[in-house]
C-alpha cells in the first residue's frame, strides 16, 4: 500500500486529506507542521508528500527544500490558501522548489486524487 505524508497545520483540512486519501486506498501519515513532517518522513519514508505552505514553526517551502535535499527523489504536491504576506506567490515558488503539482485551496477532491494517482503511477514499471 502506498504511503502518503500529509503536512498541514489546519486540523480540518488535514482530516479531510486523511479521509480522502484513506478512502482512495492509501496509507496516510499526518504531521502538523514542517518540522514534524520532516521527522515523520525520516522515521517512515513515504511515496508522496502533500504539504501546505503557510504553517507555523517550519513553513512549506523550507520543508520542501529541506526534504528534497535529503531525499532527492521525493515527490511533492503543494497546497495553499493564499499568500499571507502578499508579495510572493508561494505556490509558484513551491514549483521552483521542486513541487510536482500545486493546488490552490479550496481544491477539488477528484482533481487532487487524480494528481496523486498520476504521481504514484510513475513508480510502476
Amino acid at each position, binding site marked *: 500500500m502506498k504511503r502518503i505524508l500529509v503536512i498541514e497545520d*489546519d486540523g*480540518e*483540512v488535514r*482530516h*479531510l*486529506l486523511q*479521509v*480522502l486519501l484513506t*478512502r482512495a486506498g492509501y496509507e496516510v501519515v499526518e504531521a502538523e507542521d514542517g518540522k514534524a513532517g520532516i521527522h515523520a518522513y525520516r522515521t517512515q519514508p513515504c511515496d508522496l508528500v502533500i504539504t501546505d505552505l*503557510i504553517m507555523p514553526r517550519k*513553513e512549506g*517551502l*523550507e520543508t520542501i*527544500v529541506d526534504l528534497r535535499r535529503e531525499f532527492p527523489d521525493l515527490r511533492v504536491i503543494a497546497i*495553499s*490558501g*493564499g*499568500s*499571507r*504576506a*502578499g*508579495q*510572493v*506567490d508561494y505556490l*509558484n*515558488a513551491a514549483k*521552483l*522548489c521542486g513541487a510536482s503539482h500545486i493546488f*490552490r*485551496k*479550496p*481544491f*477539488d*477532491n*477528484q482533481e487532487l486524487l487524480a494528481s496523486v494517482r498520476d504521481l504514484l503511477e510513475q513508480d510502476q514499471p
Partner: protein
Amino acid sequence: MSENRQTVLTIIVALGLFWVVDAVVDSVFFGAGSLQEALFHPNHYEQYFRALVSLLLVLALVFGLTARRGRSRTREAILRQETQYRILVEAAPDFILIHRDNRILFASGKTLVFFGADTLAGLAGTPVESLIQTQDLARVRERLATVIARGEAAPLTEIGITLPGGSERDVEVSTTLIDFEGQPALLTFFRDISEKVRTRRDLVASRERLQLALEAARDGAWDWDIPSGRMVYNDTWAAMLGYQLEEITSDISTWQDLVHPDDRNRAWSLVQSHFRGETPSYEVEVRMRHKTGQYLWILDRGRIVERDSSGRPLRMAGTHRNITERKAAEVALEIRNRIAEALLIESGSRAYEEVLDIILRETGSPAGLLGTLNDKGDLQLWHRAPATLAVNACEVDRPVLPSDALPAALAQVVGEARSQTGREDLRLTPESPPLSNWLAVPVTLRGQVKGLIVVANRQADYSGEEQALLESLAQFIAPILQSHLAGESKELQLRQAQKMEALGALAGGIAHDFNNILQAIMGFTTLAHEDAPEGSQIASDLERVLKATHRGQNLVQRILLFSRREEQERQAMNIVEVLKEAVDLLTPSLPSTIEIRTHFDTDLALVYGDPSQINQAILNLATNAYHAMESGGGVLSLSLAVSAAGTPHPDAPGFLRNRDLVVLEVSDSGRGISPEDMARLFDPFFTTKEVGKGTGLGLSIVHGIVTAHGGDVVIRSEVDQGTTVKLLLPVHKGPVKADPLPAKPLVAAELDEDYTVLFVDDEEDIVTLGKAMLEKTGLTVAIATDSQVALEYVREDPQRFDLVVTDLTMPRTNGLQLAELIAPLAPNLPVLLITGMTEEVVAMSALGSGNIKGIIRKPFGSEALQSKVDSILRGGGEGRT
C-alpha cells in the same frame, strides 16, 4: 647460567644425602645394636645433629630449586611482554606519559628526549601541571577530573605546554584511565602540533596584515608613547585634518585639542577602560576639528602594543579613518525620519514648527524660517513666527511676507533657485531683529521654487556639507509643502499608502484562513455527496452547499486579487487593444439607457504590465460608473490619450512628472461622490452601494493594479454632475515591431544592453552565480561581496548603476541599511532585495517605501532573477529605455 646453578645444586644435594647416609651407617653399624639405639645413644648426638642439619639443608635446597624454576618461567614471559610493550611504546608516533596525582610516573624514551630528560628518574615526580600553560590549566584539570570520575577517555584537544627548558609547544592530547602497578593512573598520549598551529596562526595573521595594509592606505596612523605623552602621527593623519605634518606638535595634546569638546570625555574614558584591560581594543567615533574649522567624523581605533612588567600600558598605536560622508548620510536619514514622523504626528502649523525646530537644532542655529511661496511670490510662513523673527509687533499665526517685502538676497535665492549663504544682515520687517550669517535653501518641485528654508544667526559659518544636508531635506519636504499649497491634507497622502499596505496584509490573512475553512466545507461536502443516494434530497441539499461554497471561493479570490501583488505575467501590451476588448465585453451587458462613448487619441499606446489586470481595472471602473447611473441612465465615456513628458500632465504626481504617460479616462454622468466619501474611496470594503451590489473592493483593486504598474489613479467628481477616474500609466518604450499590432500582446523584448547592475552578497558563490545569470540577458554586472564596498561604488559614480541587487543578511551593513544609505546618494536607483525564507517579513515592511522595488527569495532560479530584474528595469528605470 641456569645450567651451572643446577650443577651446583646437584652437588649440594648429593653431599647432603651422603651426610645423612653416613650418619645412619655410623649409628647402625658402629655404635648401637639397633637404629633406635644408634639414634638415641648419647655418643651419637653429634652425628645425629649433623644428619639433621644435612636433612634440613637438602630439603631447603630441593624446595628452593623448584621455586626458582617456576619464577624463572614467569620472569621470561614478563620479559617477553615487556620487550613487546617497549617496542610499541617507543615506536608509537605519539609521546606517552603515565601520571597520577599530578606526578609523572612513566614516560616513553621519546617523551624523555622531548622533555630534555636523560633518564626517567630525571622526569619522574615532575608535577604535570607545571608543564601546562596557564590559559589551558583550568580546562585540563576539568578534563582529567572527568576522566577519573567517569573512567572514559577524554577526546583529542589542543593545549599549550611549556617544556622544562622554557620553550613553548602546542600539543594535541588525549587521556585515558589505566591500571598502573596495581593502582589507577592516567595515560596521556600527545603529539607536537606546534608547526601546524604556527602555520595556521601565520595564515590568520597574514590575512589580518593584508587587511590592515589595505586599510592603512587611506587611514591616518598614530603611535603613542604613554608615559611621556609623545605621539607620532603620520602624514595621512595630519592631512586628513588639513595640516602638514610639520604644523602639528607630536604630542597627545594635539589630539586632545582637535577632538570636539563634547566627544573628548567619551573617547578618553574608552581609552581608560582599554588601559584597564576591560576592552580588547579601543574604538570610538569622534568629531575632530579640521584646519578650516569644520568638524569631520573620525573613526579612531587603537590597541596597546606594550605594557611594563606590572601591566601598566607603555605604548598604544592606532588609526584614524574619515567617516564623515557615512555619518552625513546617516544623519540625513535620521533627520528625514524625524521630519516624516513630525509631519505624521503633528497637524497644522505645529507640524511645521516641529520641522523647523528639528532643522534649527541640527544646524545649531538660533533663528530660521520655513515657508511656501504663492503665485504672487508672497512668502507664507507655515509656523508661528518665533519672537526673534516677529514679522509684526505681535505674534501672528502663519504670518505672510508680501513679495515686495522679501529681502533682496532671499528674492535672489528664489529667482535663481540656488542656495546661498551670507553675512550681511537681513531684516524681514524694519522692526524685526536681523538675520546675520544665514544660509537660505530653496524648496523646489518640478523645477519651480515652492518655498524657502532659512537658518541663521549662528557664530560659525555654514559649511558646504550643511548646505547639502539642508538641500536634501528641502527635496524631501517639497512634495508635502506642495500638497499644502494645493489645499490637500498631507495626512491623507502620507497615510493612504500605509493604510492600503496594512489592509492589504489583513485581507490577505483573512483570505488565507478563509480558504482553509472553505476547503474543509467543500471537501467534506463532496465526500458526503458521494455517499448520498443519487437523486435523494440529501444529495440535492449538498449540491446547494457546494454551490454556496463556490460563491465563497470567488469572493475570496477577489480579496486575494486585492491583496496579492506578486509579479504577474508582464509584457509589453497595446493598451488600446485592451480597452477595446473591455468595451466589447461591456456593451452587451449594459442596459440601453446607458450610452457608451469612446475616444482614443491613438491606436497604439504601449504599457508594460499584465493585460488581464488592466482589463479587470477597466471593468471595475465601468461597473462603478454603471451603478452611479443605474437609476436615470446616462453616458459612460472611455477615452485614451498620451501625455508627453515635455508637458507634464496636470494631475501627474511627482514620480510621474518626467514620464510619457498613457491617460485612460472612465467618466460617467451619474450621481457623483460626496466630499466626505471622497476621502475613503480607496479604502478596502468601503462602499456606498446597497447590500449585494458591491463588496467595497472595486476601487481598491483598481488602485492596487495601477500602483503595481507604476502609475497613479486620479478621481474628480461633483455631486449630481458625474465622476471621472483617470488612470495614469507610464508609457513603455521598448522596441516595437513595425508591422500592424497583433491582437495579442507583444512578447517581452530583450533588455537593452546598456543597463548596469550591481550585485551584492557576502557569499562569493552567490555573487558569481548571480553575475552569470544576469550577464546571460546582456546586462553589465558589477559585483561586491561587502556592502561597504558596494556603497563606495555608488558614491563614486551614482549614475553608473541602473539597479542594485543585494542580499538582506550581510555582516555590518545589511541589505536594508545599504538601500537606505544608497537612497540619498542615488535617489532614482532601485534596489532588489534577496531574502531567505524567514527574513521575508522584515523585507516586506521595506517594500513599497523608498527605493526597494522588489524582493526575491533564496534560493532563486535564473529565470526568476532575470524576470525580477527585467521588470524593475522596465518599470522603474526612470528616464531610461
